[in-house]
């Protein structure tokens, strides 16, 4: 194991930069902001590691978002992410440059890579952090929800270097982009041989309707779960959302059933939302779902089962059949709007 005799040998905050179909993932940009703060406290600097192919503009972009240096590893065999060669690149560069901290996005690829790598280099890796700070002893305090989000655990990796963590997407803000920022792009030759290639990505199928549904921005969300029974029933939620001036979201079970696109998903492995009103329709309220919405200002639960856990955390609960209740809500809201006196100024 990497038991450092002298921890000061390890310097710098690294960010694994994930290129996805010609773009830097948002979580990589978010991490550059986090890394800047950590590097400032540690009196060190920020490096990005970008393995891919034909992505030099993305290296420049990373500098504009906060990197002081980007290690660019270009090879046509790295164009699409696969575990083994990416892990080799990371392990090689980490061994050569000895960073103190290495950060990954907790995306599918980020976790796939980090999980393999931490076992190879035998150091700690905290998953899915929502806060990253430097503690009084100069260690990285990796803060992550635990036990179904009912608590926050502070994870330390005191005796080993590197200290590695993945960060939950969309928790940290994207830092401002500064086109005038200076930094260096360092091309790192890491030889990728046939022996380093095992997985072949033979095809890619884009998710139906994946177009970016910004549920994080909605003031009112009407979210549907497995109780909806059929994708076409999401129409009922759309109608209600329209009446309220809100948007539609969903539980993972509704998403995994293929009823609605992935970017509707709220929860631990989906998005975190804090709308003014969150209306959970036919969602039982599993901890992984609550993780993404429990900080909503007001929560409304609509469920047939009065024992559904969602009722325990809601402000308003309606025990009833959503197929009757939701259309009725839409109708009554429209009625109320029509009845509402027109403001004097508009008369």
């Amino acid at each position, binding site marked *: 194991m990497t038991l450092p005799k002298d921890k000061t040998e390890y310097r710098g905050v690294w960010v694994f930069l994930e290129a996805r179909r010609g773009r830097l993932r948002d979580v990589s940009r978010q991490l550059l902001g986090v890394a800047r703060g950590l590097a400032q406290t540690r009196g060190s600097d920020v490096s990005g590691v970008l393995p891919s192919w034909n992505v030099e503009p993305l290296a420049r972009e990373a500098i504009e978002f906060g990197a002081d240096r980007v290690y660019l590893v270009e090879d046509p065999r790295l164009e699409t992410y696969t575990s083994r060669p990416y892990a080799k690149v990371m392990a090689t560069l980490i061994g050569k440059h000895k960073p103190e901290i290495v950060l990954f996005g907790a995306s599918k690829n980020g976790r796939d890579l980090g*999980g393999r790598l931490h076992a190879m280099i035998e150091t700690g890796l905290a998953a899915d952090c929502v806060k990253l700070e430097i503690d009084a002893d100069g260690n990285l305090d990796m803060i992550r929800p635990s036990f179904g989000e009912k608590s926050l655990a502070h994870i330390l990796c005191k005796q*080993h270097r590197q200290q590695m963590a993945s960060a939950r997407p969309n928790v940290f803000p994207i830092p401002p982009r500064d086109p005038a920022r200076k930094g260096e792009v360092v091309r790192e030759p890491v030889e990728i041989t046939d022996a380093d290639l095992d997985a072949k990505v033979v095809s890619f199928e884009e998710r139906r309707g994946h177009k970016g549904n910004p549920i994080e921005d909605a003031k009112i969300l009407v979210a549907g779960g497995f109780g909806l029974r059929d994708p076409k029933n999401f129409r009922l939620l759309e109608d209600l959302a329209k009446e309220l001036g809100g948007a539609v979201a969903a539980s993972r079970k509704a998403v995994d059933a293929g009823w609605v696109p992935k970017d509707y998903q709220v929860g631990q492995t989906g998005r975190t939302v804090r709308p003014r009103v969150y209306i959970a329709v036919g969602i039982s309220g599993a901890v992984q779902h609550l993780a993404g919405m429990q900080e909503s200002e007001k*929560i409304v*639960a609509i469920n047939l089962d009065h024992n559904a856990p969602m*009722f325990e955390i809601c402000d308003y609960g309606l025990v009833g059949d959503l197929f009757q209740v939701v259309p009725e809500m839409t109708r009554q809201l429209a009625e109320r709007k029509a009845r509402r006196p027109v403001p004097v100024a508009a008369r």
Partner: protein
Amino acid sequence: MAPGPRSIVCIKQVPKAQELQVDPVTNTLKRVGVPSEINPPDRNALEMALQVKDQFGGEVFVLTMGPPVFTSALEEALAMGCDRAFLLTDRILGGSDTVPTAHSLSETIHKIGGYQLIFCGEETTDASTGHVGPGIAGHLDCAQITYCSEVQFLGNRVRGKRSVEDGFETWECPLPCVITANFLSNRPRPPSLSGKIRVKRGGLITTWSCADVGIDPGKVGIRNSPTIVAKVDTVVLPDRKAKIFRGEPKAAVTALLDAMAADGVLSR
């Protein structure tokens, strides 16, 4: 056609997430007396491996590392249709984080031997890292396909449909290969009656200590885990004091909307 593969499925027994409550007095999680279950995504992993066996033959072994009470998870997996089970249990394993866990499981898998496919769940509901599966692949230096929702055994290779943020990738890998099963990717079969009878007859579970497997005590346990949990802050959520409405839908909706309007939730 090549003979079916030997699959090893790694499962963990976890406390039922829904039952975990924060003790209002001590502000810590009450874990004692909480009923446990097979980690839900691990059921999908079991089902995935059993489907490969249904289709191509071969055998499915199930492996867990933990205290002897984890035997009940193994028994359930056997009753679902697994052929043999292995329990790695040893005091010195206590407090292991993902590095020693992946190490110990890899060593045990190595001792079992003869495997082509290793299945894990996407992540556990108690540790929620998803790092053990890829960690095993890293230790064994073999291929990996994470977040898999479908697998196809191709004799000398395996093909997996991998669920990523924006779509589905199809990966093809040589054997052996670690597959992590996406939660909800299939409908895990219930334990069968004949399976339960097989379990009752006994002799299907092998119990090993670290010494039996040849695991270096200097590599496992809390003292050899790089990460520590320094402290845990309880998240105190606002007490929302739910107003609950029920009864005839029309009247219930009116009452709900009136209450929301009165609280100023509908205006603004």
